[in-house]
């Protein structure tokens, strides 16, 4: 037992900061009188923590969750490069069950935090679109895998860099992503090719858009098809973010400024 305790104290020794993921308030209160800086990373600031990083998605992948927390803390200048950070998180369902030590460096910077917080569109809108894409990836259309492309934010410019493939079913309608009725509609409209355009505040501006961005200099992994290419390219030409559900491998990918930022497997959610 002694060696186990030694190992644990080695793990937490000289930590510059503690990142606590979604703590209960009683758990958080235990850190009150410690010397190290405590950063709470959670979907909502339920515990009234002083230092708080908002988690827009409940990342199931613990690595992504920790990366997001560290990037958020870096962005708020709570930690800096070279700091030793101890993360207390929940890997399995339930309470905080893992202690993880991470050294902060630039390789942690994958842009996940940037994707949500520094995008033109509101973080909640990006989260909602993610959820729609993930659900679409899980269920598909009538059991068959389906692909979809959402361009979120900077809708005015995106509309000017694209043309309609068919009549816009969302004309003169005021539907926002996140409304419960929308998921079914989006599923139906994803049958036809073309992109969904979503505005900064989450209004679905159009479906069936053919994107016409300049594709030169877009560097995305080889093997991804036309949908990913046009999705990535439009984010280089405009300030938008695109979220693409692949028809062939079923992954949800996010692009920003022409680069792949995040890759999620819907089956893991």
């Amino acid at each position, binding site marked *: 037992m002694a060696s186990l305790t030694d190992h644990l104290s080695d793990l937490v020794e000289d930590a510059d900061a503690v990142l606590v993921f979604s703590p209960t308030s009683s758990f958080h209160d235990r850190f009150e009188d410690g010397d190290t800086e405590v950063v709470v990373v959670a979907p909502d600031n339920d515990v009234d923590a002083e230092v708080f990083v908002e988690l827009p998605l409940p990342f199931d992948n613990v690595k992504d969750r920790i990366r997001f927390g560290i990037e958020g803390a870096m962005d708020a200048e709570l930690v800096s490069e070279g700091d030793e950070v101890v993360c207390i998180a929940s890997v399995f369902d339930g309470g905080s069950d893992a202690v993880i030590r991470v050294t902060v460096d630039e390789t942690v910077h994958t842009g996940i935090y940037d994707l949500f917080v520094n995008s033109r569109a509101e973080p909640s809108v990006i989260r909602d679109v993610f959820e729609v894409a993930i659900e679409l990836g899980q269920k598909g259309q009538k059991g068959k895998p389906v692909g979809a492309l959402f361009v979120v934010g*900077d*809708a*005015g410019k995106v509309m*000017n860099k694209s043309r309609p493939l068919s009549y816009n079913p969302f*004309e003169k309608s005021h539907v926002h992503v996140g409304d419960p009725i929308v998921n079914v509609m989006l599923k139906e409209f994803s049958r036809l090719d073309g992109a969904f355009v979503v*505005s*900064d*505040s989450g*209004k679905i501006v159009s479906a069936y858009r053919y994107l016409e961005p300049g594709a030169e200099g877009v560097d995305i992994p080889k093997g991804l098809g036309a949908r990913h290419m046009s999705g990535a390219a439009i984010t280089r030409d405009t300030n938008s973010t695109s979220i693409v559900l692949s028809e062939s491998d079923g992954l949800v990918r996010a692009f920003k400024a022409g680069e792949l930022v995040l890759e999620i497997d819907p089956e893991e959610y």
Partner: protein
Amino acid sequence: MSAVPTPLSEFVAAVPDRLWLALFVLLFGLVAAYVVGVINRRLLTRAGVPEVIEGTAFERTAREFDTSTVRILAKLSSYFIIAVAVIVALTVADVNYLEQFWSGVAAFLPRLFVAVVVLIVGVVVGDKAELLVAERLRGIKLPELGVLPPLVKYSVVYVAALIALGQVGVQTLALVVLLGAYALAVVLFAALATKDLVASAAAGVFLLLRQPYVIGDEVRVAGERGIVQEVDLFVTRIEADGEEHVVPNHSVFRDGIVLIRE
């Protein structure tokens, strides 16, 4: 059959019928009071009153005295019925010497009961309104807004107290005038403060329904030219060369829209 005059039957015969009736009325009153109290408590609980008023100051105070608002209301109705029963019993028993006093009380009692109920309901609703407003404003961390929740609470309590005082027959004309002045001030203030917002919302409804321009159109509105990025109820966002103009909808409507087509 000659009855044997036992002490008991003698006693029964000695008491006038009137008194027996009075006693019966009193007993009936007590039973009715208990039943009404229990039914009231069950009804209020079934209607979800305890959950709704959870956390209000009145309920918390009641809890401190080991009771609850629902129980107080139920008790109140019981006491009211007991009091009425006592008065009826006394009248039936023909207790003459107190008649003047009791007739006054009998007339006054129902009003007092209504007044107390109105006051309790007013205080509880006021507390609840304060909680709701405070909850709503919690996201906005502005110390100046801290005066709003108590203001709402005391407005509700004030009106309740006014009704209660009116019930027991206190002259409330001056207080009503005060209330009128206060309401007028609130309405006037709100109208002044939200004049532009209301005008914008009215124009926004038109813009959203008829959609003279949509996201992606190039327009000139209120002297600003650019691409429409967003139209909502209050404002239109127009972007040009990295500048985003947030134009209130009432000015869009007043100044007109120029749609630019190449």
